[in-house]
């Protein structure tokens, strides 16, 4: 069924009885050409592009819970292409272009809203770094504007410009940055993949990976064994556990990242604003809730909830940046399990097992990456070659020293 404005109106007139489920609920077949482990944003987009770009339709996505139960439905939904490092720059640029056509592509309203992202500078040094980053973005073909203090004041008068601890010097505006509806991205890709014949199998946890003579043969699951010629591991926070089923250790530590939302308020923040001093970012959802977050809790965790010290830290950053937020009530907070790599950049690569591929290490920035990650992972699984915008996301880059340290904090665990 195609969705359209007309369809909404006619359904409204006839009691909304004509809507069907957005995807089937198939029982797993005994064998597929390819299996994707993990029904998050990246797994679903991988399946979608395998079918769409490479004509592979005898494939399945195996999800241990329900589709979108992982980080894809837990993030703060910021979509941007303002990376500096070669490797990241071209990849996120490609991803943003896919975002810009995503709703037409999927015939699904993912509520992608290019409301602009403003990163604030609080010192001369920070402003210089933002200028350099802006130039890299422009060289990549994306947009960036270095804003003066007056421009920032005009745009976001509610920020605290009077304080002396973290004075605002200006900012970097990325107008094509913005937000999207996180669940809708999972649902849109799921529906698109299903319509192309992909089996989306929920409540199906992969418990083993079958390998014979260095070649992948299939997987063991809670719903039985399933054979496959190719298997992609796309499980974000659970990457270490799934890779261990193939005898691998990954350069990943799993950490918890929290997010917060307030009660619905009238429109006040009409863009994404990132505080340069406290790793704090905020936007307002279409429902009116202020959605914000900060740093990791900074200890290994598989609990999809965090501890109070980081809650306090995030609230402090919020109050420092925009004291008016103290009047809003926090409605909910939650956490997600982040697959952190030592340099903070992802991996899309083959493994030592033939036919087994890995897409992992999305850290706290993988929502915006979902389209390009699926695009490149599908390319890799279908052709055996890395896609040109994902060529640097190698699994062995830590050993070889070709790290992509976007934050310039060093390429060791616990630094990102």
């Amino acid at each position, binding site marked *: 069924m195609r969705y359209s404005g007309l369809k909404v109106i006619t359904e409204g007139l006839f009691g909304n009885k004509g809507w069907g489920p957005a995807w089937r609920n198939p029982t797993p077949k005994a064998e597929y050409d390819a299996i994707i482990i993990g029904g998050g944003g990246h797994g679903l987009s991988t399946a979608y592009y395998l079918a769409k770009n490479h004509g592979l339709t005898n494939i399945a996505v195996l999800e241990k819970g329900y589709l979108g139960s992982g980080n894809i439905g837990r993030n703060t939904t910021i979509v941007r292409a303002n990376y500096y490092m070669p490797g990241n720059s071209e990849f996120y640029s490609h991803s943003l272009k896919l975002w810009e056509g995503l709703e037409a592509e999927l015939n699904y309203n993912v509520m992608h809203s290019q409301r602009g992202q403003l990163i604030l500078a609080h010192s001369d040094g920070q402003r210089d770094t933002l200028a350099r980053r802006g130039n890299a973005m422009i060289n990549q073909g994306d947009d960036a504007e270095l804003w003066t203090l007056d421009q920032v004041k005009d745009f976001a008068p509610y920020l605290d410009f009077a304080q002396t601890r973290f004075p605002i010097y200006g900012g970097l505006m990325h107008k094509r940055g913005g937000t999207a509806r996180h669940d809708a991205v999972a649902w849109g890709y799921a529906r698109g993949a299903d319509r192309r014949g992909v089996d989306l199998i929920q409540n199906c946890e992969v418990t083993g990976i079958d390998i014979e003579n260095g070649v992948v043969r299939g997987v063991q699951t809670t719903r039985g064994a399933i054979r496959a010629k190719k298997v992609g591991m796309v499980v974000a926070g659970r990457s270490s*556990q799934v890779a261990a089923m193939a005898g691998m250790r*990954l350069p*990943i530590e*799993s950490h918890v990242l929290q997010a917060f939302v307030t009660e619905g308020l009238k429109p006040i923040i009409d863009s994404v604003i990132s505080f340069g001093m406290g790793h704090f970012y905020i936007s307002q959802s279409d429902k009116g809730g202020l959605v914000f977050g900060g740093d990791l809790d900074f200890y*290994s965790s598989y609990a999809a909830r965090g501890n109070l*010290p980081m809650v306090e830290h995030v609230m402090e950053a919020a109050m420092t940046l925009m004291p008016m937020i103290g009047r809003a009530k926090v409605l909910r907070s939650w956490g997600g399990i982040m697959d952190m790599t030592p340099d903070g950049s992802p991996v899309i690569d083959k493994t030592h097992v033939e036919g087994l591929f890995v897409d992992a290490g999305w850290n706290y920035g993988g929502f915006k990456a979902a389209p390009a990650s699926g695009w490149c992972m599908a390319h890799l699984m279908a052709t055996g070659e890395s896609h040109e915008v994902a060529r640097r996301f190698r699994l062995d880059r*830590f*050993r070889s020293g070709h790290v992509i340290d976007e934050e310039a904090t060093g390429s060791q*665990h*616990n630094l990102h």
Partner: protein
Amino acid sequence: MRIPCPLCGTRDRREFYYYGSEDYLKRPSDQGMVEDLDNHLFLRDNPAGVMRDVWYHEAGCGAWMVVTRNTISHEVLGSELVAKQKEA
């Protein structure tokens, strides 16, 4: 989550700096292969469940300790000074 320091008792998590899996302490020899370093620096244990990890009581007594805790429930099961471990 509060962290039990063997010297100071149970303290606020914010007093500690976190170093990750106790693999951190198992430094390969200088003569080792690049694979050993790769293993040591990057391919550390990342268990879902009981884990032993290194915490430094930075804003306290300055002791280094190995904490045993559960990464799924955040339950803290015990801690031991790194110095004591090295003696043993």
